[in-house]
């Protein structure tokens, strides 16, 4: 029987490559985190309005950014998998989802912890908060659908359709929530920060964001390696991989 082995070829070549890349990204993530934390806690000055509570920003904003970026990247991979029928793309998509959901949760969690001292409430139904919450639901939907379908190939393709529908919807949701919120008399507080962000603050935030990037890449690569192994147990190249390290 002749199988379309070229479909499997991609994971076979990617697997060792990913293995080599992971340590570098992990290292970069660790280094940048140390640098970022140093900037956030020891260099950045105290905010004259919010006091020290603002230091949550250094984790909150990068996490919020990541949550959105990762969704888009994930949908991109899913689309590639759907269109070109490449297995690796779909695997990348499902490898990204948990990390994306994690950052979404972190953004929500840190936001809530920031909200209590600044607004006096853990949660307000503000546009940004609400759309972030919905983003979490979208991630959960993606993962739940993927988990609910047993045949991995089918699961890949079904959840790819969902991710694409979601990507069309995320901007719509974002703007609708924004508009919804401003049309009403509005929440009693809004998210305005100190007038001008100090340069060091911005720098700290950027370094932390970069660290998050590196971490996400490393985590996604590590997960995709697991997925490859799980799904391609039968393939010959896996049998020839040799002993695990």
């Amino acid at each position, binding site marked *: 029987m002749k199988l379309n082995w070229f479909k499997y070829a991609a994971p076979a070549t990617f697997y060792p490559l990913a293995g080599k890349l992971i340590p570098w990204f992990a290292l970069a993530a660790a280094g940048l985190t140390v640098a970022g934390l140093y900037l956030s806690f020891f260099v950045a000055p105290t905010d004259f309005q919010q006091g020290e509570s603002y230091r949550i920003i250094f984790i909150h904003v990068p996490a919020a950014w990541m949550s959105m970026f990762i969704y888009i990247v994930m949908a991109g991979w899913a689309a590639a998998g759907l269109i070109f029928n490449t297995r690796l793309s779909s695997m990348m998509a499902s490898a990204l989802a948990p990390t994306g959901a994690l950052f979404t949760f972190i953004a929500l969690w840190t936001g809530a912890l920031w909200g209590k001292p600044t607004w006096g409430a853990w949660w307000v139904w503000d546009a940004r908060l609400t759309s972030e919450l*919905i983003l979490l*639901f*979208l991630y*959960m*939907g993606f993962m*739940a*659908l993927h988990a*609910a*379908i047993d*045949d991995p*190939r*089918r699961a890949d*393709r*079904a959840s790819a*359709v*969902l991710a*694409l*529908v*979601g990507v*069309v*919807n995320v901007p*719509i*949701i974002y703007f*609708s*929530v924004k*508009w*919804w919120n401003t*049309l*009403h008399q509005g929440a009693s507080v809004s998210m305005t920060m100190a007038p001008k962000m100090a340069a060091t603050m911005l720098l700290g935030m950027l370094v932390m964001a970069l660290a998050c990037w590196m971490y996400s890449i490393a985590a996604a690569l590590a997960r995709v390696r697991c997925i490859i192994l799980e799904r391609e147990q039968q393939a010959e190249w896996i049998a020839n991989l040799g002993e695990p390290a």
Partner: protein
Amino acid sequence: MMQTLRYVVFRDLLLAMRRRADVATTLFFFVIVASLFPLGVGPDPKLLRVMAPGILWVGALLASMLSLGRLFAEDYADGSLEQLVLAPEPLTLVVIGKVVAHWLVSGLPLVLISPVIALQFDLPREAMVTLLLALLLGTPLLSLIGAIGAALTVGVRGGGVLISLLVLPLYVPVLIFGAGAVDASAMGMEAGGHLSILGALLLLGMVLAPWATAAALRISLE
């Protein structure tokens, strides 16, 4: 082509007629959700008037979502979905037919009964008209979006609950603009903006959703 569309709509409507209880039940569900609220919240009329658009729309959302199970799951279980997919017509057409039937059975009745419920909540007359229009634009959109979720969960056991996780977040814009329109109108403002956005979303949905649904169905049947 048009004929196949007609047959599919006819089939699903006939099926709904056979279980006449079903149509009534979606309606009833809507009415009950709308009536439970005053029970849960208390009878303050001012408060109720403010809450009314939101409650009505959430009720419509949930009612529409609950009836999504009927869209493909039963056809899958008894093997007639296979036969539909094997029909010598584009699957998109079949999907459109089923969505139309779904809307006629579970969307339209809500639109028609909504004025009565609006009365219960003492909504002003203009708000009532806006509510009717908004539901007329919004409920087909709910059916269209819901069809994608229903197709994705076909054959997935426990799909009934999963569907809600997939579909409810996607319903959010409909909810916001729908409730926003009624709200604006209840406060004496212009609701045209909201309604035209709803209309635009509906157009977008009509173009994209059947196609995505057909793709999802094919994947689910593999």
